[in-house]
């Protein structure tokens, strides 16, 4: 029988493209024959803006890249700047930073869990996920007063020390959360329909995944035990006990399971960090760079100049963000502003593999596979 292929535009406004991504699909009935990803609907020119701002002014922009998990973005940029300028960070500040990042990893995976299940048609898990997220956000609010865009980690430390009563509240949250993760697993993993939708969907082999530049949980779902926290340790991660979760199947279900396990590992890390929080200052007291005389009174950032000039040079620094390898490539020319900032975002590179994963499958599978890649459009388009 002669049939005609249907050209279907999914997005940029579509309930399950997680924002403003667009798929150009060539459909044979329900089956996807060709998929082309069109992006850039949220391209805000962050990299260009970085060239127009001072080093400190750029920190808030990093918040708005991956807005679900902003702390790791802060940290990745700050780490690059610190490496470039050779800034020493007190131990307590590193502990607080790791605490924030791991807490944010939990938040990110909660949102992932909810939105994945929502994409599959189950409307309830997202409510549960956001219920716990709200508690974590209250903790962030205690730290820095913001819910999503923190601007908390700065070169040389963190903006404010832990407030009073933070650690007990964190312990309370962790105690609650550990039970909740089990709940989610019970609620979701045993569901036959969920397994039908996830198993053997969007399969990608380990070699292909590496070649496509996938990183983070999406890569670990293909059985590659790769985690920058272990391979290229930074901050206090070498001293922490956690395992790298990975599943060999390479399908959507494996990618989902990796994140569930990671939530547990993050809670485990959080507990270690909270128990061993060292005393001391939460920010460096040394002065770095040549702070030009500006006349601006320094109030909040008294330990660190608002305007400083790292020595000329270039650096690429990467961390393990919740979505994968987040890297900042910063070039300094010795002035107060970065000469060039390049953001290597995990979502962008993970998305490359999508067309090869879903050709020959159906629209519902595209949504399931895309959901497990866990993409944030702010991070893709920058």
């Amino acid at each position, binding site marked *: 029988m002669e049939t005609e292929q249907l050209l279907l535009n999914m997005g940029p406004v579509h309930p399950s493209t997680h*924002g*403003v991504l667009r798929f150009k699909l060539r459909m044979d009935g329900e089956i996807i024959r060709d998929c082309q990803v069109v992006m850039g609907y949220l391209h*805000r020119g962050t990299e260009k803006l970085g060239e127009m701002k001072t080093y400190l002014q750029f920190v808030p922009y990093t918040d708005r890249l991956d807005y679900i998990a902003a702390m790791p973005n802060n940290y990745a940029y700050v780490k690059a700047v610190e490496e470039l300028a050779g800034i020493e960070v007190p131990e307590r500040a590193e502990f607080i930073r790791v605490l924030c990042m791991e807490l944010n990893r939990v938040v990110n995976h909660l*949102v992932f869990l909810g939105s994945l299940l929502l994409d599959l048609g189950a409307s309830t898990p997202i409510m549960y996920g956001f219920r716990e997220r709200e508690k974590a956000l209250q903790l962030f609010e205690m730290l820095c007063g913001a*819910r*999503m865009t923190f601007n908390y980690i700065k070169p040389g430390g963190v903006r404010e020390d832990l407030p009073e009563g933070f650690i007990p509240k964190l312990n309370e949250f962790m105690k609650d959360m550990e039970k909740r993760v089990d709940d989610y697993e019970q609620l979701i993993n045993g569901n036959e329909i969920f397994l039908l939708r996830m198993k053997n969907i969007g399969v990608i082999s380990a070699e292909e995944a590496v070649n496509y530049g996938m990183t983070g949980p999406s890569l670990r779902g293909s059985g590659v035990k790769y985690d920058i926290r272990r391979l290229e340790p930074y901050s206090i991660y070498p001293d922490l006990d956690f395992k790298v979760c990975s599943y060999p199947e390479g399908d959507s279900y494996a990618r989902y399971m990796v994140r569930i396990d990671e939530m547990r590992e993050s809670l485990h890390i959080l507990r270690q960090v909270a128990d061993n929080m060292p005393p001391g200052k939460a920010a460096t007291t040394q002065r770095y760079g040549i702070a030009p005389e500006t006349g601006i009174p320094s109030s909040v950032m008294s330990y660190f100049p608002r305007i400083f000039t790292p020595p000329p040079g270039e650096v690429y620094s990467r961390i393990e963000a919740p979505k994968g390898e987040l890297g900042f490539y910063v070039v300094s020319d010795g002035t107060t502003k970065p000469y060039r900032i390049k953001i290597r975002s995990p979502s962008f590179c993970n998305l490359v593999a999508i067309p090869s994963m879903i050709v020959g499958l159906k629209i519902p599978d595209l949504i399931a596979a895309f959901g497990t890649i866990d993409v944030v459009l702010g991070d893709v388009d920058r």
Partner: protein
Amino acid sequence: MEKGGFRVDPVTIDTTKIKTEKKEPETALEKLEDTGLISTLLAARERKGLVLLTTIDQVFNWARLSSLWPVTSGLACCAIEMMAVAMAHHDIARFGMEIFRASPRQADLMFVAGTVTKRMAPRVKLLYEMMAEPKWVISVGSCANTGGPYHESYCVLKGVDNIIPVDVYIPGCPPRPEAWLYGVIQLREKIKNEGYGAKWGLNK
């Protein structure tokens, strides 16, 4: 009293005068007045239109403000807070707004939640045009209001009101869910004073 360059006049407040006495309605007329019906009708008459039409207006306005169905269109960061508003903790469903319609044809309200880039702008406009009248727009967050932190960028629209009319602006980056709810309540107040009659110039 000089303090920081501002002169503050001492003000004495007589607290006894603030208390207003609320009288229990006794007569039938007072009871009727207490329900607010008379004042509503008088207000309707003051609008110098047909009483019937204004009453229909009120019914429709009540219906409209009670069932504002938003269109599912998140653009950026604020969209995550939009999800947070819809979730159990803040529960926008209390206002009957939890029916997020994916199709703009069935929606009444558009949250422009996030940065509107130059490339997205015609799509947002198209989405707005696809919605059925009557429709409202709430611009959420600094980016949608003015361009916000991305004001200097080469590819960001400096305020969504450049392309579509906006009813309520909610500041913040992103606004807290409480601010969203406040914005929604402001829109409800605004809808109360709209109407067919007003639109057709009958009860102006």
